[in-house]
């Protein structure tokens, strides 16, 4: 029962944040300096009657609080509005491109784990060897290099020179192999920073745990080194790593914005950039809100999973 109470508490606490995200999206169009319709029209100097008609069409002639209530009500009923650029429903457009962003973010997290944990483990076990020094330098570079630049470097060497991977696009959704082929380079570029962070954390966590008394006991009773490291040390070092990975999934979603631009991939990030360039505010508002919902959903899910991994966590105290 306690678990259920904890989980419902965690779900309830995100409701004000969701409302806040909707408010933030509402403010995008109203916080911009000048008249919203003039902002939407850009450099085009529309006659006043056209501006008035558009104001009525978008409900911008009503008082701000009425606009806000209407906006929240329509968003909560699943109506995110219509794109000014394409004329299509905003939510439909978001759902069309979202799988590409999701694959990219998940692919990046998987690659970051596959690279980061083994690198950190070997580094910790071979502490102060040349491998350790090299992997620490690589991790430092990984944390410092901008992902979009690494993406270009990977494109140059692995696509342009070697021809192993396609230059742009996201592949056909019906063909899993084509998706994976198009996914590898962008996911790798996005994963580099997380892989570096995970490798640093694995190394420092393992080094600390390898000094603990119970590891000395395990070794003293004659257990094989592999069992000591995998069964006794790594399992305990994994808890903070799980936290970082779960925190990173949300931020990796954020990183997709720039990476999608480099690889000309469709996705939520590309949609946001296009909306900004074309002043398509309903689309921008919708995409931002959807992003925020995803982020909250990821955080909430990982919090709940985390609770099962580590039963010592008590949300009543954390909130």
């Amino acid at each position, binding site marked *: 029962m306690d678990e259920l109470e904890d989980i419902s508490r965690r779900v309830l606490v995100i409701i004000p944040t969701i409302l806040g995200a909707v408010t933030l999206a509402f403010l*995008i169009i109203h*916080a*911009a300096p000048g008249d919203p319709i003039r902002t939407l029209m850009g450099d085009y100097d529309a006659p006043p009657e056209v501006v008035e008609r558009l104001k009525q069409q978008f409900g911008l002639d009503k008082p701000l609080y009425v606009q806000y209530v209407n906006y929240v009500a329509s968003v909560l009923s699943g109506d995110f509005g219509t794109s000014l650029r394409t004329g299509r429903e905003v939510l439909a457009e978001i759902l069309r491109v979202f799988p590409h962003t999701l694959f990219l973010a998940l692919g990046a997290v998987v690659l970051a784990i596959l690279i980061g944990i083994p690198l950190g483990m070997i580094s910790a076990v071979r502490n102060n060897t040349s491998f350790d020094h090299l992997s620490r330098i690589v991790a430092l570079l990984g*944390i410092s290099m*901008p992902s*979009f630049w690494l993406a270009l470097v990977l494109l140059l060497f692995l696509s342009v020179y070697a021809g192993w991977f396609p230059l742009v696009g996201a592949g056909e959704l019906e063909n899993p192999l084509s998706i994976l082929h198009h996914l590898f380079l962008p996911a790798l570029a996005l994963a580099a920073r997380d892989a570096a962070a995970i490798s640093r*954390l694995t190394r420092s966590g393992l080094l600390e745990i390898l000094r603990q008394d119970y590891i000395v006991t395990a070794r003293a009773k004659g257990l094989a080194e592999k069992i000591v490291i995998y069964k006794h040390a790594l399992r305990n070092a994994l808890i903070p790593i799980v936290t970082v990975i779960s925190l990173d999934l949300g931020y990796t979603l*954020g990183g997709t914005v720039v990476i999608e631009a480099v690889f000309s991939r469709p996705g939520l990030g590309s949609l946001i950039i296009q909306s900004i360039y074309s002043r398509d505010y309903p689309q921008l508002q919708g995409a931002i809100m959807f*992003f925020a919902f995803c982020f909250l959903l990821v955080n909430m899910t990982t919090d709940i999973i985390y609770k099962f991994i580590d039963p010592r966590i008590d949300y009543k105290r954390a909130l």
Partner: protein
Amino acid sequence: MLRQITDNKAMLVGCILIFIFTATAIFSAWLSPFDPFAQNIRFRLKPPGETYWLGTDGYGRDILSRIIWGARISLTVGVVAVSIGATLGILVGLVSGFFGGSVDNLLMRIIDVLLVLPTVLLALVIVAMLGPGIFNLMVAVGISNAPRFARVIRAEVLAVKKMVFVDAASALGASYMRLMSRHILPNTLASILVLSTLRVAQAITTEASLSFLGLGVAPPTPTWGSMISDGRIYLRTSPWVAIVPGVMIMLIVMAFNLFGDGLRDLLDPKLRGSKANLAR
């Protein structure tokens, strides 16, 4: 203190790199061998060589000169944006942590909302609202950094305000303002300094990302992010145009990360090994 810096080799490297970049930014007018804006189509896309050490770009502009001038933009945006973010974040964190209760609840819910968007995305949204330009860029990156400062400072304030010396000052009749500014804030300075250094690295990357996307400083002003963006179309034939500015971003971000990590070890041993450096 100087001895401790020189003992920590990583921090020393960071310190030296920051010094070099700062000096380059300050003396860019004297250091750049060519006019960074001067176009010369006859010498476009020249590879690195004797005359043009780092080559030329698609308009025949000297890349080295543009890199030197770009340091000025990167550092200015990084430092000013973090100052804006730190000021806002400190104010919110201090008030929130000190007063607690419903003030804390309200402010933290606002911070929660800002934290649901990653820094780059939040900065992107703010730039979309304010329009491009260096000032708006600094404000956008600054505001997007503020929630992280607010969270850290609030946590610090919560710990410090329970200490006996704060009770003593309060018992002696110190006002809320005095308690916050004279007794609590000075005790959070170590964290502020460490976080600021690490966030400068993050702010420089955010600025580069926004400039790369064409939402940063308007051309022809040289910024490292826009230089990479310009170099994209020549990637196949003249890769140095995009590669060199990226190396610079990597070096400056690495410098601030090394310096920040060292500073954390130096000023606040209890933070050692924490995830502050991984915070986005």
